[in-house]
């Protein structure tokens, strides 16, 4: 483990940066879980809460960024400290985007809460959400513990989220083709699924940053890309 700074206030600032990221991460996790819960239950009140809560995450981003800039100006950080501060800025911006994606799911609840959701579809969505959320939790733990193994596991795990997204994409298109009255609901759900897939991508970014923070190098593997939907078409004859 690294030794402490001679200047203790510097040490305190770095610790506070970490603790703010932990708090921001915790808020983001809760927000995603609540947004998805509101989606499943068609709970408008809870969706509205999520929309309001996203502002808190945005505030955290500004606060952490401001602290990072101040630290760069005052401390002229080097090596590990420099990496920690740069990575803090990047992780914060990924978390902020994740918050936005959660908020977007909540907004869609307001449009589709009256519609009946197909069970099987929601089952797939649920497992995608569970996976995205556990990935996010793991990557935040990896950051707190400076654990590159855990970060790599998250990084490699994103493929699984993509796989679920591919099959949901297919399924949703099929529903739409079966009955055009499904199109409204399914389009919204498709965006929700896409949001979860994007959350996975931001989580992967964070994993890369944890790796860089600890080792000073980038992950030396091709990033697993599993989202094939940009090349996917479903024919009526399928």
């Amino acid at each position: 483990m690294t030794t402490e700074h001679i200047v203790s206030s510097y040490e305190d600032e770095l610790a506070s940066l970490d603790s703010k990221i932990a708090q921001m991460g915790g808020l983001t996790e809760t927000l995603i879980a609540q947004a998805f819960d509101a989606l499943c239950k068609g709970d408008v009140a809870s969706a509205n809460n999520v929309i309001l809560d996203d502002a808190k995450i945005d505030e955290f981003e500004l606060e952490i960024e401001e602290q990072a800039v101040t630290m760069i100006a005052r401390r002229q950080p080097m090596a590990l400290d420099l990496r920690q501060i740069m990575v803090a800025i990047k992780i914060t911006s990924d978390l902020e985007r994740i918050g936005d994606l959660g908020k977007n799911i909540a907004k869609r609840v307001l449009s589709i809460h009256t519609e009946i959701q197909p069970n099987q579809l929601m089952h797939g969505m649920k497992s995608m959400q569970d996976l995205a959320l556990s990935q996010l939790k793991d990557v935040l733990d990896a950051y707190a513990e400076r654990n590159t193994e855990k970060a790599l596991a998250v990084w490699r795990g994103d493929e699984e989220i993509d796989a679920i997204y591919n099959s949901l994409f297919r399924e949703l298109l099929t529903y739409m083709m079966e009955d055009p009255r499904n199109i409204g609901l399914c389009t919204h759900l498709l965006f929700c699924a896409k949001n979860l897939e994007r959350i996975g991508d931001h989580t992967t970014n964070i994993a890369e940053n944890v790796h860089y923070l600890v080792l000073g190098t980038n992950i030396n593997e091709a990033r697993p890309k599993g989202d094939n939907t940009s090349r996917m078409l479903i024919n009526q004859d399928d």
Partner: protein
Amino acid sequence: MVATHVVESKAPMLEQTNDLAEAETTNVEPAEKSTKITSEDVCVYYGEKQALFGIDLEIPENSVTSLIGPSGCGKSTYLRCINRMNDVIDICRVTGTIKIDGKDIYDPSLDVVELRARIGMVFQKPNPFPKSIYDNIAYGPRIHGLTSNKAELDELVENSLIKAGLWNEVKDRLSGPGTGLSGGQQQRLCIARAIATKPEVILMDEPCSALDPIATATIEELIDELRSNYTIVIVTHSMQQAARVSQRTAFFHLGKIIEEGETTQIFTNPQNEKTQDYITGRFG
């Protein structure tokens, strides 16, 4: 409108995003520079006390190499080995080899005075001679007989002052005393004096530690310009300065080199924990 940087190299760095392709061509150092100074197993003893332990270091030509480390780590001792300044200390003993352009500088047949003419040195505190600005620069060329007449000497003085970025400030007062200049000007005068003997290597021992930030920036800009023609070795206590001016950095601790490498790598991702602790201010 934003004023331009005193240090010119910073401006293109900030503009890089506008034109990546161009930035790549301007910012890339030639892959391998040939080695100017080679040290092998250099040990220095002050009487019974050993100050340096087996220093192996290769210093590339036409680049800036900075030596960093806590007080008493041996970086200045090593610097003084390069122009054999340690010879003047009676109890000091140097073993191992230091070669410049492949020639052993501790070879008994070598003329030390001639060696020191090839290696300029700039110290922490500006130390102009108590003479005129002109004579400060002309002193070295005169004793080494580098010029044959007054016109040549005048030209050499002017050129040295131009290279040191001081000419415009002093051209109307060349007969005035060198000690009458400001601290930053005096330090540039000393650099001009070092350049006047047409050295190949310039050694700098904390050249900016007695200067204000603007004078420091001027010297750093000068170092950046000089490195296209000279091999520069600089000892500095300012890690930021080492990061700013040098291409390679060696970290000394307790008389040994702990880590040596490209400056950017040392300051973003040092491989040794001691280096990391030192440059981040964790040194216990």
